[in-house]
């Protein structure tokens, strides 16, 4: 079954007079790992943040599992803001991992991970804790369960962030430059967790500057520049035989 879990059509977004997304069309299939690369300021993160409506888009559509994200369509065809409840219920099904981790500093690692399941999904605390322990074991934090985030390294914080997102049992995981804030020696441990997740069949959309990860793990690579998608192809083709001059130029810069 390869019907797309996410379908993005003519997505546009302005910040004031500046148009950051100039009509994005993209489909993401279940189980697919999609990696988005491109120069800074090309709109990669904004695109990702529009998918779970952390950023409001102003034109076009994001369809998640057939549902329009963030808006409903009025009888006359205009887009109306959707209810907070529906927006929240869609976000529940999309995990997100942030560049700056954004763990809740007043909670321990375990409390961070069970927060969503207990408060949003109303799962019993004991059950949520059992799941959380298993998840934290899986990301290699079994011995950090009761620590506060400030006591962890960046790599450990990001793995906790991944566990927190996974705890909601999402259909899709969104990664917004998950390793960009990390010291170089800590990048590997986070990428390992992400690779394992991909191998388990998780649908992933990853904005990153880690070209090695794109080459090894992505099913398709999307190259963005200046608010548009300039090329979409399997990594083998992007890295060996890109069709666009701007892709060549970008890769030359990031691959030295």
């Amino acid at each position, binding site marked *: 079954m390869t019907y797309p879990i996410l379908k993005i059509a003519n997505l546009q977004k302005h910040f004031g007079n500046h148009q950051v997304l100039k009509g994005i069309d993209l489909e993401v299939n279940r189980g697919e790992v999609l990696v988005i690369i491109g120069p800074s300021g090309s709109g990669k993160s904004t695109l990702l943040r529009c998918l779970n409506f952390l950023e409001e888009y102003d034109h076009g559509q994001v369809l998640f599992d057939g549902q329009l994200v963030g808006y409903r369509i009025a009888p006359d065809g205009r887009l109306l803001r959707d209810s907070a*409840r529906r927006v929240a219920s869609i976000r529940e099904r999309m995990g997100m991992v942030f560049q700056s981790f954004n763990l809740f500093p*007043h909670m321990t690692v375990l409390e961070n991970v069970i927060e969503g399941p207990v408060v949003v999904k109303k799962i019993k605390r004991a059950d949520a804790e059992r799941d959380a322990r298993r998840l934290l074991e899986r990301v290699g934090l079994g011995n950090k369960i009761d620590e506060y985030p400030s006591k962890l390294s960046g790599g450990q914080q990001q793995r906790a962030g991944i566990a927190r997102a996974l705890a909601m049992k999402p259909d899709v995981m969104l990664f917004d430059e998950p390793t960009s804030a990390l010291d170089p020696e800590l990048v590997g441990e986070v990428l390992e967790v992400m690779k394992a997740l991909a191998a388990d069949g998780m649908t992933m959309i990853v904005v990153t500057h880690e070209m090695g990860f794109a080459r090894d793990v992505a099913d398709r690579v999307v190259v963005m520049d200046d608010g548009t998608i300039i090329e979409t192809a399997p990594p083998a083709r992007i890295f060996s035989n890109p069709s666009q001059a701007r892709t060549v130029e970008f890769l030359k810069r990031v691959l030295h």
Partner: protein
Amino acid sequence: MGYVWDFQTVWDYRQVFVRGAVITAELTFWSTIIGTVLGLMLGLMRRSTNAALRYPAAVYIEAFRATPILVQLVWIYYSMPILIGLQMGNIASCAVGLGLHAAAYIAEIFRAGVNSIDKGQWDAARAIGMRYPEMMRRIILPQAVRRMIPPFINEFATLIKLTTLGSVLAVNELLHEATNLINNTYRPLEIYTAVAIAFAIMIYPFIYASQRLEQHWRVRS
């Protein structure tokens, strides 16, 4: 010129000080309650995306911050019966006036505290499907309250001292009682000294507790 201090007089009239301090404590208690509840509401309204909530809150806050509290107290005392037909006693009127005044400042403390929380915390809370009330209660306020405690204690200490303005409404708070006493005993220096010490005794424990709490939180995070 050797001034002969005479604290015996103060001791002899200690009942007067206690009586005044009780009124001061009552005024502080009620005005803090009114100020905190109303202040939280105003602070939330001020942050609202709904202009019909935001503008009235802004007007209220700026009006109370831009006018003298002495004028506010007298104005409330005389206008309440006319405007809403509510005749309050001196003490109640003073407590309400102080509370309405404190609310403006507490609203700003609240707003500043909430605004100081990193945008990433809101993103993370939304991303796991939280809606506004749970996000506030579980993620934002627990962090913001820690930052609000020092300015809140500051405001509270100010409020205790502002109760001395109750004398313009003939409220028998600590300073008013002391002034009456001076007129009878002609011992202003000793009595004002005692008043100062009495206020310090009431206020300092809160400052100390606030410092300890900050320390506790710093150690934990």
